Each structure stands twice: as structure tokens, then as C-alpha cells.
């Protein structure tokens, strides 16, 4: 109850600002989940491949970085989106 009253007494602009900050955090946090798992899968499989065939490590490494770049792009979209969100 007191929290609601506190909110009600606040300046609406500040409330929006605070909620924006929370939203930014949620956006970036949510956007980082999937790529986090994805990068884990990419790197894990790349390491398996390198361990199985050390002679093809160079090609695997290049492809791994490409895969990471593609996967990471999603997290970065979230990162950028969190800047776009503004009060």
C-alpha cells in the first residue's frame, strides 16, 4: 500500500524514467539468454571438432568465429534496442 502511495506521490516523469530503465534491463537480459546458450553450443561443438581433428583446427576456428558472430548479433540487437527504448 505504502509503495503504491509512494509511486502515486512521485512525479510521473520520474516513474516513466525508472520503468524505462527496468525495461532496458529486461530487454537486454532477455536478449542475452538465447545467444548465450547458442554461443555455448557453437564453441562446445567447435572444440569437439578441433579435438577430433586437430589438423582442421584452423578452418574450424574461422567457422566458429563466424558462427559466434551470427549468434552474437541477436544479443547485440537487444543491446541496441535497450538504447532505443527511451521514456
Amino acid at each position, binding site marked *: 500500500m505504502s509503495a503504491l502511495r509512494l509511486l502515486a506521490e512521485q512525479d510521473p516523469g520520474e516513474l516513466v524514467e525508472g520503468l524505462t530503465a527496468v525495461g532496458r534491463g529486461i530487454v537486454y537480459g532477455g536478449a542475452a539468454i538465447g545467444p548465450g546458450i547458442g554461443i555455448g553450443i557453437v564453441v562446445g561443438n567447435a572444440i569437439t571438432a578441433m579435438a577430433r581433428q586437430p589438423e582442421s583446427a584452423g578452418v574450424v576456428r574461422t567457422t566458429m568465429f*563466424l558462427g559466434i*558472430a551470427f549468434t552474437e548479433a541477436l544479443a547485440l540487437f537487444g543491446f541496441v534496442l535497450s538504447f532505443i527504448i527511451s521514456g
Partner: protein
Amino acid sequence: MLGLEFPPISELVEWKSFGPGGLNKVGLIYVVSALLTIAFFMTAVAKGRKQRVPTGVAAIAESSVDFVRNQIIMQTMGTEGMVYLPLLATMFFFIFFSNIFEIIPGVQFPANARIAMPIVLALLVWLIFNVAGIVKQGPIQYFKGILFPPGVPKALYLLVTPIELVSTLLVRPLSLSVRLFANMLAGHLILATFAVLSAALFSASISIVVMPFSFLLLVFLMGFEILVSFLQAFIFTILAAVYIGGAVHPEH
């Protein structure tokens, strides 16, 4: 709470212009990195002509050109992609040098943390791979290859065609520019955060105990950002090569 005054982001990435034509720190970094690359190659060529076995600058220049040639172009386009060597090498060095200013003391700002140049470069790549595809395959064949990729059941075109259209013509330049921009911005923010944190902990009396950890992490992150600077230049260039190669050789 902690007495930590974290500056707002606009203060960290926006710079007042001080020169003609709105030249500010970011523009200056771009100019300096272009000049650095030029000086680097001039020195390398001047030194390398006299040497039997290249050492120092000449060896670095040669091996980096070899790197662009063998690791980026040969892996994605093959020998006929050598036409794009000047463009891709320029991109690689330009992006790398403007990134590496992230950790140069006294500058400490990756110019690509401002979205202007990443957008320009991504649009350039977009333009080049489209033009190359149209010139090589003819406009009808090229857009048919994009919109109706072979080997897909007819019914699926309803789903595939819009996705391909968006992903090739829209998401590619967007992701290319945003990847570079966001990586460098994030790196800059992380470094700034830990620098501010280290400074704050240094000034506070009791929390100086944990200051070394924050500081060590800062040191580690600086090393990491060197890697990121290189990696982003590499990834930007290799993706540009992949896109151009894909437009020139539709079967890959």
C-alpha cells in the same frame, strides 16, 4: 548508494566538435587511423625493399596482407575474389586501427562505438555485393536466386521468400553495422565502468581491499578488448567477403 558517479552514456560517447566540418574526436580517430595505415604501409614498403628477409614492420605488413588474402578471401571467394583485396584489406585495417584506439592510453575511444562509420561501411558492402551479383548473374537471375533459393519445396516459398528478402536486403547490412557498433560500444562501456569503479574504490577508504580485483579485471578486459578489436575487424571483413562471394557464386 556507493557514491559511484557513473556518467550518462551520452557523456561517454559524444564528443564536442572542435575542427572544421564538425571534426571531433571520432572523426580525428578515423583520420588518424587512415594515416596510420598509410604510414604503416609506406614504412613497410620502404623497409621491405631493402631487406632480404622481412623483419619488423615489413613482416607485419606482409603477414597481415597475407592474412586478408588467405584467411578471408581464399576461404570465402577463392582466387577470383582477389579483385576485392584492396577493398577488404582497407576495411580490415581501417576498422582494426579505429577499434584499437579503444585501449590506447589518452585516447581510449573506439571510433566504431559511434554508429556512423559502421553504417557507411555496411551500406558500402551491401551496395557492392548487390551490384556484383547483378553484374555477374544479371538482375533477374540474381533476385530469383535470392528470393527463390533452389532446392526448396514450392509451397515453402510462401514462407521462405519474405524471410530471404528481409534477411538478405535488410538484416545483412543492419546486423553487419550493429555487430561492429554494439561490440565496440559495449567494450567501451565495460572498460569505462571498470575504470570508474576502480577509481571510486581507490578513493573510498575501506573498499580499497577489493580494488585490486576490480583493477585486475580491468587489465584483463583491456587484453580482451584487443582481441575483440581484432576479431570485429576480422568478422566484419570476412562477412563482407562471404556476402560478396555469395552474390558472385550463388551455388555456395
